Structure formats: structure tokens, C-alpha cells
């Protein structure tokens, strides 16, 4: 910050540098101050900052000194001048002298600190008493002191690149001020890789920054949801997993077939982990395993100052392997010097399901005891869902304290979240503690920054996905016309034992009593996470600083699922109940050493950069245990029936260590930035990684470079006045990625009976790490007094040499092999258009549109081995499969389609009689039916401020793409859905069909039709829907209470809403929701919990 500012000022004023000397010898007669400065600069090495105009009013100086300290020389020079000076480091800032009033006795002295919004002090800010010539400037710590004739004037704070602020003195003697950077100012400082702050104009790639207020304006239980729709090129899919669930975050498209596609999360320059708990994401449509929340959802949004999204490989190149999918850089708040400040915020929000399946009310259960509703007519049916779904609530209370002296600052925060999901029993409790200390020592040369975060989180009854152990299957499929209420509180028979204990009308592994699942198949997830960060920076010289940083991120997850006796036998095979326990600790340790340098040179060229090294070490440990119980419903590890070894499925239980993981990544990296006359910038980076996961292969090391160029055209060319800023930029970057651990050396295992089990996987021996190559071109423009800004980026990335597990031919004797292959291409554009529509005193209106289009293409899978397709999600005998296939794109949905003749008519079996009705046929091979990824995304945000009121809203749209509703298919098969009722009322389903003899058929019996096309293995293409969805994602109305002379500094209340209105949605569910945040299962709804609509009330108070 400091360095940047000095450079900035030097751009407009004048600067020179040489070595520093202590004492001065000088003899001059009647020379201008300017000449004296020149002489002093040569002797002392001090820089002089001044405005030439100001010097016009000065008088010539005569002086003769020997071996005199510079400040004394300066005192002499400035005697009787209308200007005075201030020494900041090795720079002498010349400023106008404050007029000294005659009536000094009546004066008051006002002091204070000027900070920017991030809490960093701003040196050199002009502080003026309005309407007078009286003024001063802030020192390096941002402090100022000013005399005023009375306590009723107004202070004016101004500084280039920041919005000028006026503050009424109101007899205060201590006035701290925060200056906001001009929204589109040239001086925008952005946080870049490794936490390095750079001026935006020197960046050669695109980033987008979101401020903390944006994240907390309309809160969500996972803070990443607050970025949805706000960042061009960022695609966010919340998991349909109730409160505390994970989100899937994809920047510029999916690229890795088998690896991670999510970005790296970095807090204050240091990477953290983002794993979900030991209970992994579901991998198939049967589901069954709940989501335990990801790492990023644990953070307290109130602690975040801002988030910077580094989208491309170039931006992330310095983070290496882990960052090939982009980086989410989080800068947290720290304490500020000055009076202690306490803020408190409280949010209470109510959630309710945003949509429900549509049911028919005209036909009842097929026959008594049947699971479907193809029976006789009934008159009306009740709403069984209202007996189950509840209003979710989220109550979050957060308090933070900021205080400190010039030397040391403290920030402490505590947040408590208590949330209830829309499914009964789904509860989240989270406590976040955060303590941060920052301090400077030795003339501010040594900066120490340490941070302790402790997070404790409990999630009960995280809803299951898919067909298994999901209360929604039983709830939705419940025969129409019957009253589900009889099963609500009487979900168990006290008198029964074993499987008979559950009170449900049928024994079916796809559906159980919903309240049985809630109460008798509960799950509990507990997370304890400690995140320790520390950093020490020493400014060795004005051109060199050295920084050492480290963190430990340790997450312990404990997961338990208790299946009581009475649970369906598929999940409880001996009838005594089943226990599923896991305890996993993931620990990441990171350390780096970085030298930042600015080459001291006196020329239009400037060079700065860094070199450094880092080590990242990840270890996962844990135990899991699952199995049938000996004593019924006694859920303790010792009661799990011991394993029987052997090779067959008759093994009754399974006790295993959690798959361990030890990966270490070591890196050396460097970055150099060259600039010419502050308008042309060249950035070069290089990084070399050494990955322990490549041990046993010939080469554990891989190098990748990036290069970028940007030009600020308005500084180089004579552009029309209307253009305030015009930048063009381009980069080329490569990022390598390693493979998972333990693949390079094949080790055998043993089974529970102690028998040797040979590992017949082929060793990954001579293959190469994955590599993404990307190019990016873009421009950033600002017009009309910076009120209109536009940014545009084109990119193309190709990810090659991916690691693929392949199924080798049988006679190879390998069960699995690995190859390096593939070429997944993502190309697209992103744009941001912002306009300050009204910039008034009382009223402002800002609007912004961001958009992105990504095209994903699978150019190659593994053609050299004849493999052109890779299965992301297997079908498991259901009708959904996801492939990565040449010519297709990532996440393609494959399924069965209707058989049609050459004229497009549906080919029908049967004769159309009651005994042998017409039924459609499926092409029983999987074919490509769609892709769930949006073709285009658009977000439109608006904020209005009128005096104390504020209003903001965000509308966003995801356009294109297709999704599959297996839910609808099963509801249709069971005859409970509205369409099946409507079809029966209409006498059948209207089709353009043809029977075996070639006769045209226009109507097919509804039951025959839906029982054929519906169901989990039915005809998929009948359940493909457009994924286009346009919604009012966020809205907030706020009011800041005008408060004077009270204990409160500010009080703000707001009403917020999230996911309020679907302007357009054709699918029977929210296509944005995902069943898994992994690579598979995208675009399929299998009894996912519906999306919710959320309305909340916020209170923010600061003291």
C-alpha cells in the first residue's frame, strides 16, 4: 500500500532517489527552494515531493551550514516560507503551511487518523478546514493534527484517487475518517496471488473483487452463495443438502475428468482446505450419503473484508497446481488503530420451499397395499407435503471488536449461527471465533500478523440425496387420497421387533416412512476446525522486504448415522440396526518465504517482483466403521458385529481405515513486473513444483511459466476526453497439476480375514502431470468521468495430459490402468458493464451487468489407446449416466430415448386393447440427451441510495442447458403426478404414434404410457427439461438511523430476500441445485430437497 502510494504520487509530482546521508554541507545565496532541494537530494538521498505551483510563492534562500542534520537544514530553509514540510521515510513532503491564528487560546486541536475502507492508513491526505486556507496532511500512519478556531467548522479530507469527504467538527477533538476509493479510480489496489497488492492498472489479466458488504448484505449459510450472479465467469451450484450444505464453484468451465474442478481458496495469501467431510459426495443416483458441508461454508462472512476472484491460469500461476481452476482470494478484516469499535449484527431469516411437485387429486391407490396410484377415482386428496416440510429459520448473531494503537491492533469476532432446514430435524449450529493481532516494530520495519480461527459446527439430519434413505421418496410417492398423517407420529410399532418395527404401508427399499427416516435413521455431523495463520515481514531496505508466512488448517469431522432396527433390510441386513461412524482429520500445513523487491533505478523503466518458495503438506487420517449391530439399536462401536473375511458379498460388516492421504508439494516461484512510464506493463512468472504424489516416477518436478502484457492507452495516446481509462491486456499461462497419492507404487492390501489381496491396478509410472494452457485477452475501459466502466475478456484453456483411470482389457491382468490423455477445451467471454446512473448528493444509483459465456468441448479423451469416452457417473441400472466423450462437453447427460420411426412417429408395442395396451419402446442404449451447464450467464445488480435509505437487488439468469428430473419420472410411474391425473381425465396420452402394423395411433392409455416412460430406468428423454432459469436472486431494503450523540455510532436495519422470484423456470426443480459438488451427477434431480425462498431481517449496530 505504502509503496504503491509513493509511486503513485511520484507519477504526478517529482521524485528521485539516491543513497541516504546523515548530515549536510551547504552554502547557497539567494537560490530558489527548488535548487536547494536538488542539492539536498543529492547529498542526503531524500526524495522531495512537491507541487511546483506551490513553490512559486516561496522566497529564495541563503544558507551556509556544515555537517548539519537534514531536519535542521530544512527548518532553516522553510523558515519564513508559506510552505512547510513533513518527512515520511526518506521522502520530504512539501505542503502549505497552516495559517496560525492570532487567538490561539480559543482554538481547539483536532487529531485523528485517516484510513481506507480496508483499514489501512493513508499517508499524505490533505486535511483542510473548509472555507479557510488552514490545512495539513496526514503522516505515514495516516495521522493528522489540525488547529481550528472553533468547534463548529467542517473538515475536508481529500486525496487523489479517493472520494473527498467532509466531516462536521461538532466540538469533537478526535475525528477518524475512512475514505472510500473512487469507484472507478485509477488507483484501485487489488489483492493478487500470494496476497501481493498491486495497482489494478499493472495487472495483465482479469480479476473481479467483491467487497465484504456485498457478502453480508443478504446472508446465506454458505458465504459462496452470496457470490452467485455477481462475478462474471463464476458458476455456483448449491448442493440440495439443507442447511450447512456445500456449493460447487466452477470458474470458466469444468476441465479435469478425474481431478478437482473447484478453485483454490486462499485466506490472506495462504491456501486453506475446502474438503467436505469424510462422508463423501454421492456418486450415483441411488445417493444415500448426506453432504457434510465444505470448508468454505465454515467461515464467518462478517470477518471478510473482500473477496478477489482470480479467474484464469495467469492470475493463479503463482499458486501452482492447486490453482489451475482459479483462486478465490479472501482478505479478512483486521484491527484498526484508534478508538475501540464494536459492531454487532443480527440476522433472522425464514426459509420455505420454493416449489413442490405437482400432484393429481383424482385417482387413488391402485389397490390396498399398492405403492402406486393407478386406482379408482377419488374426490380430492390432501396436501401431504404440508405435514412434512416446515419453515426453515436462520438466526445469525455476530459481534466484532476492533481496537489498537499505532503499534498494535486487535480484531476479535464471534459469530453464532443457528439454522433449521425445511426438512424436520435438519439443524445447523455453528460458532466462529476469530482473533487477529497485527503489530509493527522497529520503526515500522517489522510487521507481524497472526490470526486464530476456531470453528465448531454441528449439522443434524443433513438430508440424504437420491433414492435411498431419503424421506422425500416416501413423502412424494405416498398413494393419493390416503392421509399420511397417520404415519407422522406413529412411525414405529413399540410391540414389534426387527424389520416389522417400522409403521409404513409397504416394504420397499426406495421408500420408507419419512418420519422414520428423520427420527430413526438420523445422522449427525460435527466439525471442529482450527485455522492458524501467521506472517512476519521485514523491510530490509526501501527496495526489499522479506516475508515468512505459515498456516495450519486442521479440520476434524465426526459423522454418525444410526439406522434403527425397523429400517428396510437393504440398509440393515440383520434387522438389529446398523451403525455408520467415521472420524476424519484433514490437516494442511503451509509455509512460504518470499522476498519482494523493487529494483532501485532512475529511469522510465521500473522493475519489481518477488521470488520465493513454499511447502504445502496435506495429511488425512481417520477411521470409519460400519456394520450391523449385535444388540438391537445400541449404537456404539463395540456393538458392531465383527467382520467376516472372504471374497463374497456375504461379509456382514466392514471396518476400515479412512483412505489416508499424504501429499506434499514444494515449490519455487518468481515473478517480475516491468513497467515503462507507468503505461506499459510486462509480467513474467515461473513456478516449479515438486510433488510427492509423483514419487517413484522418473520425474517429480514440473515447471510452468506465464507471461502477460498490458497497456494503459489513455496514458500513452491522446484519447478523447470522454475516455478516462483504457487498458488492453493479454496473457499466456500454463499450470500443471499433479495426480492423487499412492498411484505410482502399487501396494497390496489384506482383507478383514487377514488374507492377502493383490492390488491389480497398473502402476502410474511414467506418466506426466496434467497441464492447463490458457490464453486470455481483454480490455478495461472507463468513460464519462469514470461513471461508466466496461471490461471484456476472452479466454481459451486447454487441459491436456489428464490422468484417467481406464479399464484395461481383461487379459492385461490389470483391473485398472492409468493413462495421460485428454484435451478438454473451455473457451468463452466475460464482460462487466457498470454505470453510475445518478451521482447526486442525496441520491445515487449504481447499476452493473456481468455476463459470461463458456463453451466446453472434449477434443480428445484417449484416442491413442482407442478410448473415446470416460464415465463420470455410472447408471447403476438407472436411466441417467454422465460421460466425457469426444465431441461432447463436460457433464453430458446420457439416457434412453423413445423409439421413433423415420417419420418421427413413436413406435408402439401392443394392440391397444385393455389387456394389451399400446406401450412406447425405449432405445435401450444410452444416447446423448443434453448438457446441464448453462450456455450463458447474466447478472444484473442495482443499488439505490436515497439519504438514509438503500435498496438493492440482483437478477440473474442462466441460459441454455438441459437437466433431467428422475423425480418426475418416478412420480409419473407411480401415478401420483398431476400429468398422470390430467392424462387419465383426458382419456389417455395424446401421441403421434404408430403400431407394429403401421397404423397411426393418437392415444395411449395413461398408465401404460407413464409406467413405461417413467421410473428410474424409464425413457430418459421424456424427462429432459430446459435448464434456463431467471430469478430475483437477492433484494435488500435498508435504513440507516440518523443518530447523534448517543452510545451508538450507527444503526442500520434491513429487510432482505434471497431467491425470491423465478421469472422463468421450465424444469420441475431448480436446475441450479446439484446432487453432488463432485464431478458427476450434474443436472439430475433425484428427490433432491427443493430450493428455498428466504426472507430475512438484519440489524447492524456499531458502538
Amino acid at each position, binding site marked *: 500500500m505504502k509503496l504503491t502510494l509513493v509511486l503513485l504520487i511520484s507519477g504526478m509530482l517529482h521524485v528521485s532517489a539516491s543513497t541516504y546521508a546523515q548530515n549536510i554541507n551547504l552554502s547557497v545565496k539567494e537560490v530558489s527552494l527548488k535548487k536547494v532541494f536538488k542539492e539536498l537530494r543529492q547529498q542526503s538521498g531524500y526524495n522531495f515531493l512537491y507541487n511546483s505551483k506551490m513553490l512559486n510563492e516561496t522566497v529564495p534562500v541563503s544558507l551556509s551550514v556544515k555537517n548539519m542534520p537534514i531536519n535542521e537544514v530544512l527548518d532553516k530553509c522553510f523558515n519564513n516560507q508559506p510552505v512547510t514540510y513533513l518527512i515520511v521515510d526518506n521522502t520530504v513532503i512539501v505542503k502549505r503551511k497552516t495559517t496560525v491564528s492570532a487567538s490561539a487560546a480559543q482554538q481547539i486541536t483536532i487529531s485523528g487518523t485517516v484510513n481506507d475502507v480496508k483499514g489501512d492508513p493513508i499517508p499524505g491526505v490533505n486535511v483542510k478546514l473548509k472555507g479557510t486556507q488552514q490545512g495539513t496532511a496526514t503522516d505515514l500512519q495516516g495521522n493528522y493534527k489540525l488547529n481550528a478556531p472553533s468547534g463548529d467548522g467542517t473538515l475536508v479530507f481529500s486525496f487523489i484517487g479517493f472520494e473527498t469527504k467532509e466531516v462536521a467538527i461538532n466540538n469533537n477533538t478526535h475525528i477518524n475518517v475512512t475514505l472510500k476509493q473512487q469507484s472507478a479510480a485509477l488507483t484501485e489496489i487489488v489483492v493478487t496471488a500470494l496476497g501481493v497488492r498491486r495497482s489494478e492498472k499493472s495487472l495483465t489479466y482479469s480479476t473481479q473483487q467483491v467487497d465484504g458488504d456485498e457478502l453480508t448484505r443478504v446472508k446465506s449459510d454458505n458465504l459462496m452463495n452470496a457470490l452467485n450472479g455477481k462475478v462474471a465467469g463464476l458458476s455456483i451450484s448449491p448442493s440440495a443438502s439443507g442447511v450447512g450444505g456445500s456449493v460447487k464453484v466452477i470458474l470458466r468451465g469444468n476441465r479435469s475428468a478425474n481431478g478437482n474442478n473447484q478453485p483454490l481458496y486462499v485466506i490472506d495469501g495462504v491456501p486453506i482446505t475446502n474438503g467436505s467431510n469424510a462422508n463423501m459426495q454421492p456418486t450415483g443416483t441411488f445417493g444415500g450419503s448426506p453432504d457434510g458441508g465444505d470448508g468454505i461454508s465454515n467461515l464467518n462472512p462478517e470477518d471478510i473484508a473482500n473477496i478477489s476472484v482470480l479467474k484464469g491460469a495467469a492470475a493463479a500461476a503463482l499458486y501452482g497446481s492447486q490453482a489451475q481452476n482459479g483462486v478465490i482470494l479472501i482478505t479478512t478484516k483486521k484491527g484498526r488503530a484508534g478508538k475501540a469499535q464494536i459492531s454487532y449484527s443480527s440476522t433472522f431469516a425464514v426459509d420455505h420451499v420454493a416449489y413442490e411437485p405437482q400432484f393429481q387429486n383424482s385417482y387413488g391407490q391402485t389397490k390396498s397395499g399398492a405403492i402406486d396410484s393407478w386406482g379408482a377415482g377419488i374426490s380430492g386428496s390432501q396436501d401431504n407435503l404440508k405435514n412434512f416440510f416446515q419453515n426453515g429459520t436462520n438466526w445469525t448473531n455476530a459481534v466484532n471488536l476492533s481496537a489498537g494503537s499505532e503499534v498494535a491492533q486487535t480484531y476479535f469476532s464471534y459469530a453464532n449461527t443457528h439454522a433449521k432446514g425445511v426438512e424436520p430435524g435438519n439443524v445447523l449450529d455453528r460458532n466462529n471465533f476469530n482473533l487477529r493481532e497485527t503489530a509493527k516494530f522497529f520503526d515500522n520495519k517489522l510487521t507481524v500478523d497472526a490470526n486464530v480461527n476456531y470453528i465448531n459446527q454441528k449439522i443434524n439430519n443433513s438430508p440424504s440425496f437420491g433414492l435411498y434413505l431419503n424421506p422425500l421418496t416416501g413423502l412424494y410417492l405416498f398413494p393419493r387420497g390416503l392421509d399420511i398423517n397417520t404415519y407422522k407420529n406413529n412411525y414405529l410399532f413399540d410391540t414389534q421387533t426387527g424389520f416389522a418395527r417400522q409403521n409404513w404401508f409397504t416394504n420397499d427399499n426406495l421408500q420408507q416412512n419419512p418420519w422414520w427416516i428423520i427420527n430413526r435413521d438420523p445422522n449427525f455431523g460435527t466439525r471442529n476446525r482450527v485455522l492458524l495463520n501467521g506472517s512476519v515481514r521485514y523491510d530490509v531496505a526501501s527496495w526489499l522486504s522479506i516475508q515468512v508466512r505459515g498456516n495450519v488448517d486442521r479440520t476434524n469431522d465426526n459423522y454418525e448415522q444410526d439406522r434403527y432396527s425397523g429400517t428396510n433390510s437393504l440398509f440393515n441386513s440383520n434387522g438389529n440396526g446398523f451403525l455408520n461412524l467415521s472420524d476424519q482429520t484433514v490437516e494442511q500445513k503451509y509455509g512460504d518465504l518470499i522476498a519482494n523487491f523493487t529494483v532501485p533505478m532512475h529511469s522510465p523503466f521500473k522493475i519489481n517482483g518477488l521470488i520465493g518458495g513454499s511447502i504445502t503438506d496435506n495429511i488425512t487420517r481417520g477411521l470409519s466403521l460400519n456394520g450391523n449391530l449385535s444388540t438391537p439399536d445400541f449404537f456404539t462401536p463395540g456393538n458392531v458385529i465383527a467382520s467376516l473375511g472372504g471374497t463374497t458379498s456375504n461379509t456382514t460388516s466392514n471396518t476400515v481405515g479412512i483412505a489416508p492421504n499424504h501429499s506434499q508439494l514444494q515449490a519455487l516461484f518468481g515473478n517480475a513486473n516491468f513497467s515503462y512510464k507507468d503505461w506499459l506493463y510486462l509480467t513474467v512468472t515461473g513456478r516449479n513444483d515438486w510433488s*510427492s504424489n509423483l514419487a517413484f516416477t522418473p520425474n517429480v518436478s514440473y515447471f510452468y511459466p506465464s507471461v502477460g502484457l498490458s497497456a494503459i492507452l489513455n496514458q500513452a495516446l491522446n484519447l478523447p476526453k470522454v475516455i478516462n481509462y483504457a487498458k488492453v491486456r493479454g496473457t499466456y499461462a500454463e499450470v500443471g497439476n499433479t495426480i492423487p497419492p499412492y498411484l505410482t507404487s502399487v501396494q497390496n492390501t489384506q482383507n478383514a480375514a487377514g488374507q492377502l489381496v493383490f492390488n491389480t491396478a497398473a502402476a502410474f509410472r511414467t506418466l506426466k502431470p496434467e497441464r492447463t494452457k490458457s490464453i486470455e485477452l481483454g480490455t478495461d475501459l472507463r468513460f464519462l468521468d469514470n461513471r461508466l466502466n466496461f471490461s471484456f475478456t476472452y479466454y481459451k484453456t486447454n487441459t491436456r495430459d489428464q490422468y484417467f483411470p481406464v479399464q484395461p*482389457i481383461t*487379459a492385461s491382468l490389470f483391473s485398472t490402468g492409468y493413462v495421460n490423455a485428454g484435451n478438454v477445451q473451455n473457451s468463452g467471454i466475460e464482460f462487466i458493464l457498470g454505470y453510475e446512473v445518478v451521482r447526486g448528493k442525496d441520491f445515487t444509483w449504481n447499476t452493473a451487468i456481468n455476463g459470461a459465456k463458456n463453451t466446453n468441448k472434449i477434443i480428445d479423451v484417449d484416442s491413442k489407446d482407442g478410448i473415446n469416452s470416460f464415465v463420470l457417473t455410472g447408471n447403476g441400472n438407472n436411466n441417467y449416466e454422465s460421460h466425457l466423450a469426444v465431441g461432447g462437453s463436460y457433464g453430458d447427460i446420457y439416457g434412453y430415448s423413445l423409439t421413433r420411426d423415420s417419420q418421427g412417429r413413436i413406435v408402439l408395442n401392443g394392440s391397444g386393447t385393455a389387456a394389451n395396451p399400446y406401450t412406447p419402446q425405449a432405445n435401450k442404449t444410452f444416447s446423448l440427451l443434453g448438457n446441464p451447464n448453462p450456455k450463458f450467464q447474466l447478472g444484473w445488480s442495482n443499488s439505490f441510495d436515497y439519504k438514509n435509505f438503500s435498496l438493492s437487488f440482483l437478477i440473474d439468469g442462466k441460459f441454455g442447458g438441459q437437466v433431467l428430473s428422475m423425480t418426475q419420472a418416478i412420480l409419473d410411474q407411480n401415478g401420483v403426478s398431476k400429468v398422470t391425473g390430467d392424462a387419465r381425465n383426458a382419456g389417455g396420452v395424446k401421441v403421434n404414434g404408430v403400431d407394429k402394423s403401421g397404423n397411426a395411433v393418437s392415444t395411449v392409455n395413461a398408465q401404460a404410457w407413464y409406467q413405461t416412460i417413467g421410473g428410474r430406468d424409464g425413457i430418459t428423454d421424456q424427462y429432459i427439461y430446459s435448464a434456463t432459469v431467471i430469478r430475483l436472486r437477492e433484494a435488500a431494503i435498508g435504513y440507516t438511523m440518523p443518530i447523534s450523540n448517543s452510545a451508538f455510532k450507527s444503526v442500520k436495519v434491513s429487510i432482505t430476500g434471497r431467491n425470491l422470484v423465478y421469472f422463468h423456470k421450465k424444469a420441475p426443480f431448480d436446475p441450479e441445485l446439484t446432487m453432488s459438488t463432485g464431478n458427476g451427477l450434474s443436472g439430475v434431480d433425484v428427490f433432491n430437497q427443493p430450493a428455498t425462498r428466504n426472507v430475512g431481517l438484519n440489524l447492524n449496530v456499531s458502538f
Partner: protein
Amino acid sequence: MALALIILGVSSCTKNFEKYNTNPNALSVNQTIAILPTAFGPLEQAIYSNYQVAQNLSADAYSGYMMSPDPFRGGINNLNYALVDGWNQAGFNDQYNLVMGPVSKIAATGARTKAPDLWAVALLIRVEAMDRVTDRFGPIPYSKAGTAITSIPYDDQKTVYQQFFNQIDTAASNLQAYIAANPGKTPLAGSDLIFNGDYTKWLKFANSLRLRLAMRIVKADAATAQQQAEKAMSAVGGLLTTPADDAAIAQSGGRSNDLWVVTDPYDDNRMGASFQSYLTGYNDPRLPVYCKPATDALFAGQYIGIRIGSNILSRPDYDTYASLNTATTFTQTAPQLIMTAAEMWFLKAEAALRGWAGAGDAQTNYETGINTSMQQWGVSAGSYISNAVSKPVAYTDPKNNVNNSPALSSITIKWDPLAGNEQKLERIITQKWLAIFPDGQEAWADYRRTGYPKLFTVVNNNSNNTINTDIQIRRLPFPTSEYNNNGAAVKNALTLLGGADNGGTRLWWDVNKANF
């Protein structure tokens, strides 16, 4: 300076990478070697991997022993010659994945030289397992298996058999040497589910396997057949001689007898009509040991099986027919036979018929075979071997007379020294068939080689004319997974097969010519 330190740090730290990248939950090389014997149990169990689809719904039915009452796949399946790729694939893939693969891993531990005894047993299990594969399909990838990931050529069946003999040579000589040097030592005791580590029995098994394979190829390569058979009959260690020598895989580790599984819990297996025709016709004392009578109200208590290829519309129609005796014979824990002493006596009877050295007298061998089998199943032979009257009986399906058939053979039990070789062979193979039950795989091979015993044909043939109903099925087609993944090699294999890839093409040893 800092950079230099970092570089030093990095170069010294990567030393630990191999340690970091070693899975602590998996075994080290030394630990693998230490517990190598424990791998043999799963290896042996793998011979009958996926039993239902790999053997029961093909060979067990094609041998006339058994038939399923379950109308799998709408009643259109293997049992009426509509060959189901997914089923037959298991009979191919599993032996590669679960036997060939692990045996190659045993070789990789250095066992060939460091533990030649273990290597001998591994080779014998491999030959036993892979013989079942080649006898289903014909040419298979064998000599080149494990040499590549993407394309592996097939060997013709003659080459495969030649390698089998070579590997039996290695196994037998390793075992002879080990037994001589370490009398009474049993390193595999506790792990070996077949002989509990008794190497003298493994040596008998090696010789017996040689004899079985030799006889198999008699029509294709008579010289080698005779040479290998004579070698087997004179080999050190001898053949399986009494029921105490019988090779059967004991149940362990929660595994259940496969016949019990398919018959009882799956309820998918019943007595075959051909088996019924001979057993009831001969009033065979083994009948109640092998089977249990029907439970159908119409014919309860009778031994009425199901004819192969019967048109079965729904399971309850044939569920109640005679089944296997899972109560006392094929119980959940009963070991699963892979080779018996009785089989050896019948092989020697046939060898004697062919005049091979060391075979002894045909009649003696034949009668000893029958008696050994009776002894094996714990029944008294009584006057069985002197019964010159009883003959197989006609089959009558009480529920569907379309399935009825007169008896196909009039062969009697009692040895007739004056009969011609062809009749003698029919008698030997028919009794062998009754003795080696329930090994449908071996019985189907004998039927294809000799045409005996005479078996009822399929009632319905859904093979699209690729299989002649009277000639019956000769093999299974290669799995489509081979066409997808090993396409060039499998196309080449069709040349080695010498015919179309369907169930009607004869294997190399299945030569369409007279037995003598």
C-alpha cells in the same frame, strides 16, 4: 541467500517423497511375501467366481444335470440358446481378474524361485481355472496375458493345452523336489482350502489334471494325448485314488456353497430332465443323495426334473420340480468339488480301452470308478454294477407334454466285455457322468468330446439357427467386451477358432469324427 536456502531445502526434502507416497494402510513388499500363503484361499475360491452366470446357467444345464425354473430375461436366455453376453462374460473375465492377475502378482514376488512349492500350487490353480475358460470359448489370451494394456493376442487352443502340460510339468517337478527335501512340511496349511497344504495330494492333483487334459484332446492330437496320459499314469506321486484324495474347495470367509446359493436362497436351480432319466432309470442309490423330490401337488415326492429349453413363462410353474439335495449334500458349508478319484478311474478305463500303457484293465477301472463314487457319496453300491437290465427312462413333463421325450439311450450298467469299443465308451462316460456330478463344466466337455451320455435336446432353440438343436451347443461366444477393448485380437482369434463366433462352432479338441 534465501533462495539458496530454499533450493537446499527442496532438494533435501524430496528425499522423503517416496515415504510420503507410500500408503500406510497397504502392505509393504516384505509384508506381502510374509503373508503370501493367505492369498491362496481367495485364489481357489475364485475358480467358482460368479458361479451362477459363469457355470450354472450354461455348463450345468448343457451337461443335462440341472435346469433353472426362473424365466430369466423373459424366458429368452442361455437355457434355450439365446446366449446372454453379460452372463458368459463372467465366465471369461473373472478368471483373468481373480486368478491370472493374482498369480502374475505371486510371480512378481519372486515366488517362482524363492518359493517353488507355492508357485507349483499357483500354477495348478491357474491351469484348473483357465482350462474351464478355454473349454467354454476356445482360443483365449494365455501366453501373452499381462504383457500389455490395450491389445493382447489370443492363443489357439492347441497352444493353450501345450502350455497347460508344460506348466503341470513345472508344478509336478517343483512339488516332487519340495516333498523329497521337506517331507511332511505344509507351508500352506491353514490357507489352502483344497488340501490344507498337503503337497502329496497336490502332486496327485497335478498328475490327475494331466490325465484329464490329455484325454480331452484325444480326437485332436492323439499322439500328445497318449503321451501325456501315459506320463500321468506312471508319474511319481500317483493319481487321485480314493475319495480321501478328492479335490474340493472348502467354504471359508463367509462364502457359501454355490449350489446351495443358486438352489436355495436364489431358488433358481432344479434337477435336469436328462439326469432324472438316467438316475431314476438305473434306480441309482445316489439319487436321493444328489437330489430332492418334487414338491408340486401334482407329483409330490417324485423325482421329476425340468427339460432344458422348456418354455417357462413364470417361475411358479417349475419351482416345484425336483431339486438338488441342499439339506444334506449341497449344504451351505459343503466344499465344492473340482476333481475326484472316481473321475480318474473312469479316465483310466477309457485309457485302457484305447490301449494306452499303464492304464490297466478297462473293466476293473470302470467298476472301481463306480464303487469309488458310491463310497464318495456314502452309499452302498449293492448289486448296482451287476445290473444288466435297468435303462434310462423316458421323460414326461406333467405340466407340459411338449417337453416329453422317449429315453435316448438303452445303455445298461453292467460291464460287457464283448461289447464294441463304442458301447464300452458310452458305458464308461455315462457312469463317469453320474459319478462326477455336480461338475457340469467337465461333464459338458465329455459330452462334446464323446457324444455321451445321450442328452435331451433343448425344447426351444432361440439361437437364430447358429446352434443345431441335435448337435447341441459346442461353445460360448467371446464377450462383447473383448470386441470393444481387444478388438483386433479377438477378430484374429476367429481365424484360430476356425468358425463363426457363436455357440455352434466346435472347439479344437471337439473334432466331428468317430470316437475310435
